[in-house]
């Protein structure tokens, strides 16, 4: 051996001996983040902890927001009654009272839960937990053909699918990205929540929380299923590996959390002021006209809305749903938030009575079917717009529409089928 190498080795050899006798290497003292990660990223505890935190988020959002929703509810009820009693022109009174105040009221009642969800997610985000959740879910997600980075868009989908789908831009691989986008609508957005709250509240009193969470879980399971299927049929291959930076854990700052929640809530409010406003008016039009035939909205069966509902009815009758549900679902195409409001207008009732009203036409099984269909059947207009923009070609958008309609029918049919066996 070359002497230069020999002596270099000899020197290091001696250094090793010397240090071996005089130095101890303990592992670097762990930081708070390191310690937290030991538990939060644990093979067995990781996912349960994640699910537990998600449960806390939803409990917070739905239970603590109730008083605020009730305040909004009462306000719009008063406003609607005031309008109807103070405005002389009958049509105008109905438009402003039932159409605008009534419709908007139904929608804005859900502003508090949505805001609370954003607050809770904001807290999780600010602590630095979300990348850990993505990491923990990555293995599970990869198994069903989803890329680890699609975790955040999926999570956002629980708020609204429009920004959620746009958030998929962080996924580099085109195939991974497309698949994430195409299953995102199955993540139950906040607009569908009113439907669950209504039906779960009426038909599963005392267990609303569990039923609603089950809807969310159903969405997740179906998303996983469809991701696997779509990947198998159209693309093949596996999701690319996840490389993500994990920030240090920190105490969340109230300011940034509230700020973030406010910004996201504003998006919802803006939607309420525009599309939902228009939607409420459209539905009001369809259900109150022709005016004489319906006697100013009293006789619903004669309205344009009813005609549409009846046209759809044959398809949904086997699922235990009638034409009113058909109209409501049709309105949901424009914006899911309108579905409940549409029921209100169709039954000619306000918020307090809607519960009793639907008791006539639904039962627990058809209620579940209704919820499932709402979860699955179609992306709303705004989402479709984003789908086209992010997927590029129409063929993918059409695929989404077709698979969602079929899946919705299939799942609802299964629910009805199982319901018949059990009851």
């Amino acid at each position, binding site marked *: 051996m070359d*002497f230069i190498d020999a002596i270099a080795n000899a020197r290091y050899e001696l250094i090793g001996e010397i240090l071996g006798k*005089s*130095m101890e290497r303990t592992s670097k*003292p762990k930081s708070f983040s390191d310690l937290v990660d030991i538990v939060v990223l644990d093979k067995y505890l990781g996912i349960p902890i994640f699910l537990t935190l998600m449960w806390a988020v939803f409990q917070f959002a739905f239970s603590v927001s109730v008083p605020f929703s009730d305040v909004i509810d009462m306000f719009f009820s008063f406003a609607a009654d005031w309008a109807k009693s103070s405005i002389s022109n009958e049509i105008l009174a109905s438009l402003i009272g039932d159409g605008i105040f009534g419709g908007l009221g139904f929608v804005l009642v859900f502003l508090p839960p949505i805001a609370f969800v954003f607050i809770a997610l904001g807290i999780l985000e600010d602590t630095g937990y979300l990348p850990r959740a993505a990491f923990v879910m990555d293995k599970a997600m990869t198994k069903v053909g989803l890329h680890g980075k699609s975790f955040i868009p999926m999570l956002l989908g629980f708020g609204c699918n429009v920004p959620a789908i746009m958030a998929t831009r962080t996924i580099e691989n085109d195939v991974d990205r497309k698949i994430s986008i195409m299953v995102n609508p199955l993540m139950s957005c906040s607009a569908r929540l009113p439907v669950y709250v209504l039906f779960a509240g009426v038909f599963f009193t005392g267990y609303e929380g569990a039923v609603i969470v089950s809807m969310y879980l159903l969405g997740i399971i179906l998303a996983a299923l469809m991701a696997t299927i779509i990947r198998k049929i159209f693309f093949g291959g596996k999701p690319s590996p996840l490389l993500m930076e994990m920030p240090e854990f920190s105490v969340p700052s109230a300011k940034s959390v509230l700020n973030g929640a406010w910004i996201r809530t504003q998006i919802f409010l803006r939607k309420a002021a525009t599309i939902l406003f228009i939607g409420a008016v459209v539905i009001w039009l369809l259900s109150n006209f022709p005016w004489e035939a319906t006697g100013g909205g009293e006789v619903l069966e004669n309205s344009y809305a009813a005609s549409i509902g009846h046209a759809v009815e044959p398809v949904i009758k086997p699922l235990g749903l009638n034409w009113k549900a058909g109209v409501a679902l049709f309105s949901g195409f424009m914006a899911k938030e309108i579905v409940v409001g549409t029921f209100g207008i169709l039954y000619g009732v306000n918020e307090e009575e809607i519960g009793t009203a639907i008791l006539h036409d639904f039962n627990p099984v058809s209620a579940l079917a209704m919820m499932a269909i709402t979860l699955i059947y179609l992306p709303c207009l705004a989402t479709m717009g984003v789908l086209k923009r992010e997927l590029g070609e129409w063929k993918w958008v059409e695929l989404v529409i077709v698979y969602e309609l079929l899946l919705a029918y299939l799942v609802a049919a299964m629910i009805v089928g199982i319901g018949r066996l059990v009851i």
Partner: protein
Amino acid sequence: MRKVVALAGNPNVGKSVIFNALTGAKQKVGNWPGVTVEKKEGICKYKGIEFHIVDLPGIYGFTASSIDEKIARDFILQKPDVVVDIVDASNIERNLYLTMQLVEMEANIVVALNKMDLAKAKGYKINIRKLSKELGLPVIPMVAVKNEGIDDLKEAMYHVTKHGARTFLRYNDGVEEMISAVQERVIEHNLLPNYPPRFVAIKLLEGDEEILKMANFSEEVVKQWIS
């Protein structure tokens, strides 16, 4: 009384900080003779002795090919009273490599073990007493940026000027055999008598151009000596 102290060590071990801590305002900056490399000198008075501190360039070895290394090597071979070898405790293996070479040059060495705080943060637990015993040299733990250990360093410098601090570190048998063989010839031919024979032997074996030239032997000859 005037004593010369050389500050040696790898780049970025905190030499400047220690230099400033020892010399304070009494610094002088110039050039090493014949080259454009900066030379920093200063005075440190302690217990009646005027320590003349010379800051050597940061280096990893003592080959003749690099100007910085040559400057450092020449200065140390002129036998300053003390060589303060500044070792970064958080990078201790790499830094001790230079120490090994200083020992080969048979200098009077004080090991200033700096950045002890970083070493601790990395989880290193260094037993100073044992290290000192294994090296055969005084070891002064320091955190120069926090001014910790400076006084102990001064005390060590003082002690070494009075009593010296030379050690002998033995490598493995294979290497030591080769060194012995060449060392015998160095002594026999009285090559470079101003330099420690062991150092000359190692440099000849490494094929150091300067030493070979000064000794007036070629590499092949040296190779023959060890066969």
